[in-house]
């Protein structure tokens, strides 16, 4: 709950909530409003798509189990013409559902039930990442906790000590840094590092990631840099 309400003079970011269940809307709407967001609600996938056109929201909270169009399909169609960050809410806890949503272009996901602090944190990460992508702050140097990455010179430091990485390891780190805070799926990592057509080589990816982690984050019990989203992908930790 560390986030402060945004300044009252600037209108808060507009969140479009696509959710067919009234109980959740009843709980989310006042909570989001209380934290300075503006909220629009849609109850079906089609309605959601047309509201995105109509209101141009800053972020979409999308339920996967919609009565008309499947949330995955909504994401896919949305991605054909919009870059708006999408955070998926789902009661389906299965990993393949999450991977499918992320691969379809969602930025993040939350499994129901979830707590409000976690939702707010995910919304903030998605919004910030959006700004980075739009080139407002293309970090030449990324630094979080013990990790510092100089993207221009391709040098990596942990607690001030330079670490030597192989070509693939560096590329992996680069992709994760560029998506800091966001879950990057195995397939997205494979596509980014090896190019399309290698998406079946998850086994290699895992071993490279294990090597990378050993170099940067040696205590598996207390990961400081990487977070494994088991069965889905990896995330570079960005604590608020």
């Amino acid at each position: 709950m560390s986030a402060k309400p945004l300044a009252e003079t600037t209108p808060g970011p507009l969140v479009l909530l696509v959710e067919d269940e009234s109980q959740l809307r009843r709980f989310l709407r006042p909570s989001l409003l209380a934290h300075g967001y503006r909220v629009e609600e849609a109850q079906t996938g089609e309605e959601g798509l047309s509201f995105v056109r109509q209101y141009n929201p800053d972020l979409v909270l999308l339920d996967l189990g919609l009565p008309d169009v499947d949330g995955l399909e909504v994401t896919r169609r949305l991605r054909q013409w919009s870059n708006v960050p999408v955070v998926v809410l789902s009661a389906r806890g299965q990993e393949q559902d999450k991977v499918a949503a992320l691969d379809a272009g969602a930025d993040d996901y939350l499994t129901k039930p979830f707590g409000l602090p976690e939702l707010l944190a995910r919304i903030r990460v998605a919004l910030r990442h959006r700004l980075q992508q739009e080139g407002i702050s293309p970090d030449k140097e990324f630094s979080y906790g013990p990790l510092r990455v100089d993207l221009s010179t391709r040098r990596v430091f942990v607690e001030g000590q330079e670490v030597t990485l192989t070509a693939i390891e560096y590329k992996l780190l680069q992709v994760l840094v560029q998506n800091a805070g966001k879950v990057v799926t195995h397939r997205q990592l494979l596509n980014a590092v090896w190019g399309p057509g290698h998406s079946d080589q998850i086994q290699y990816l895992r071993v490279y990631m294990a090597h990378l982690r050993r170099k940067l984050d040696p205590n598996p019990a207390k990961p400081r840099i990487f977070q494994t989203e088991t069965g889905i992908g990896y995330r570079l930790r960005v604590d608020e």
Partner: protein
Amino acid sequence: MANEERRPTPEEMLARAKAEEERRRRGKLKIFFGASPGVGKTFAMLEAARTKRKEGLDVVIGWIETHGRKETEALTEGLERIPPREIEYRGVRLKEFDLDAALKRRPALLLVDELPHTNAPSSKHARRWQDILEILDAGIDVYSTLNVQHLDSLNDVVAQITHVAVRETVPDSIFERADEVELVDLTPDDLLQRLKEGKVYIPEQAQRAIESFFHKGNLIALRELSLQRTAERVDVQMTTWRREQGIAVPWTARERVLVAIGPAPQSADLVRAACRMATRLGAPWIALSVETPEFHRLPAEERDRAQAHLAMAERLGAEPLVITADNVAETILTTARQRNVSRIVVGKPTHSRWRDRLRGSLVDKLVRGSGPIDVLVTKGELEQAERPLRPEPRLPAPLREYAIALGVVFLSTALSWIGRGFFDLADEAMIYLLGVLFVASRFSRGPAILASLLSVAALDFFFVPPFFTFTVADVRYVVTFAVLLVAGLLVSGLTLRIREQAEAARQRERRTAVLYMMTRSFAARSGVADIAEAAARHVEVLFETEAAVLLSGDQGALLHRGGSAGELVQSEKERTVARWVYEHGRQAGFGTDTLPVAKGLFLPLTGGKGTFGVLGVSLGDRAQPLTPSQRQLLDVFVNQTSLALERAMLTEQAQKDKVTVENERLRSTLLSAVSHDLRTPLAAITGAATSLQQERSNLGTEGRRELLDTIREEAEHLNRIVSDLLDLTRLEAGAVAAKKEWYPLEEVVGSALARLETALAGRDLWVDLPSSLLLVPLDPVLVEQAFINLLENALKYTPKGSPIEVTARLSDGKAQIEISDRGPGIPPGEEKKIFEKLYRVAGTGAPSGTGLGLAICHAIAAAHGGQIEARNREGGGATFLLTLPIEGTPPEMPRDEKP
């Protein structure tokens, strides 16, 4: 008392009811039977059909051969016709009766002309009469036509009369099976008249026909044959009727004919004669082929002929029997006695009499040993089977044997020469005799004779005075020579016999061994798939080809369950044959008359509830067709396999039923327990929320917060129960199969620990992982879940602040992960129980468990083929050990370069 009415026995009544039912379900077959072409069978058939049509029956022409005859053509008008199927064969367009269209059309009565017709090669059945059988099976009545010369059993007689061999024959069984046979009779004079008028053939053909086939003598003989055959049929019908009326017909029950056949061409006549006799008597008959060791040395074509004779007998309705034995006469008599045979039919011997003197005549032995059984000796030859195959088929002994024989004689001569000072002639003769015996006992007859002759010559030349001549001074030496010669011959004959018997024994032994092995391997297996696989393998090994077992699945589909999955299973053509066999319960495919274009021979696997599968053997690529004894072996195989598979399927079904019952029981226990577990947190939430709603309550800030905490905690607890239940249900329903991938173990351990970061805060955490990267095939999501459950379990049941240890190691090709604590440990005797569903250790006061966490761990371990166990540690606390097998080799890593 001949017509004394008596009550039929229950067995007879059952047989009658069965036959009655069979007849009602199947279509009726009526055959218009004639002595020769041109008597008007097709015409009569059409007229009968038109009458039926007038009576309102749905009559359709399936195939009609009018030969351009106008009157016949006129009769087809107004009758629906099924258009013929056109087949392109070697550039010629052939028209054929369309079986599938007829089955689809399903008329009440179908006319199919020319019963003996041979179908074009790509047709479903080789012969039209097989098409008709299938139509009858479908419950459609059929009218068809047949000439007497096409009947299998009369084929040879007709050929003798007309000197025209007819190839397209029809088994007598279909003639017997016909519900009605109408003889279409025309006097030879009338027929010739019709022929001359061009009513049978078009004029130019007619003249040729009259010259070759239709001369009066032929026609009279044929007419007599057809009348006689029809009369025989009526006779059989009469006895059947008598049986059905319960009139005792003692002699039919006692008659049984056995015909002994061999590879001689005359055996075919013998079979036909036996068939005619059996039919006349209304008696079942057996065709017996005795395979002696000599039989196996016959040239392949002769063995094939024996096989063909047996197949012909089977087609004519005989029960074929192949027995391997040494003594033909004894085997025939034993079989006859065992099978209650009343008449034995054998062929007349054709060899010279002196051989019988030497070896004993088969006919003689049969007649002497037959006792009450009649022995009929008819023309034809049987002795072939017992013929001592001295001259032709014996392979000449290899040159090596002759060379050794020569060497032995040389050696004997050398020995005798060296010792000639001390030996007298008797000793020298003994040395030679020893050599001859050695050769005779080792090698075949040729070298033995050579050794004998050479020994005699050498003895004479070197040691019998006058020396160095072949002249013999004293007559008594001749005895020595004779002894040498006869000893050689006798011993080599004995050796030969022993060797042959050994060979025959080996063959029998091999067959028995194979069967024994199969039965034993079936007994050792229990699963359907296992047995199917074993059966296919045995057939493959034995017949040196591919075999496959197909079994019926849920929706009646045939599923490949064992053996090769090659062409036999993949090819559309083979699959169609398999399907047909499965549906009809009869064999088909290669080497049979049904769908012979297939590469595989398919045999039905039949059990108590009908056909449940098919065994396919790929024979199309074999150089040699199966011998009758191989066929017999294959049949035994199929029987054994059917039995074993049926047993396994019944067991599986019983198992399934048992599991279902067990599941039901568990489900209801689970449901009652869960409903309690679900209600408790719900009650807490509802209670807390309602008291918060009470405006007037004097809750302080502290009290409100406590209530809110309760709501959150209980909601989380509820969520845990629900997701645990879902996980467990999915795991147990098999919906979640472990998707194993090579995965770094430290990553799963790490992510599980990271997930519990907050909960683990304030605990001493010892993590000991192997220093090298340990890749384990596992489903990361499931294993992470197991670790989390184990860690939470440790957190829940141990005092705050007590240490938790996580160690992983590679041991004995398995990954072992231990999660240990220093808590109160597990009550003795409950180390296994804690993995059961909804089991909680009593008296620990730990409230928040679902009782499912460890059950899930257990299910996950099982899904990986691993295990989980719990035990108490020395010095207090509990250890949970999860073992995961590591099978296979991890993927090789591509090279990674430095940047």
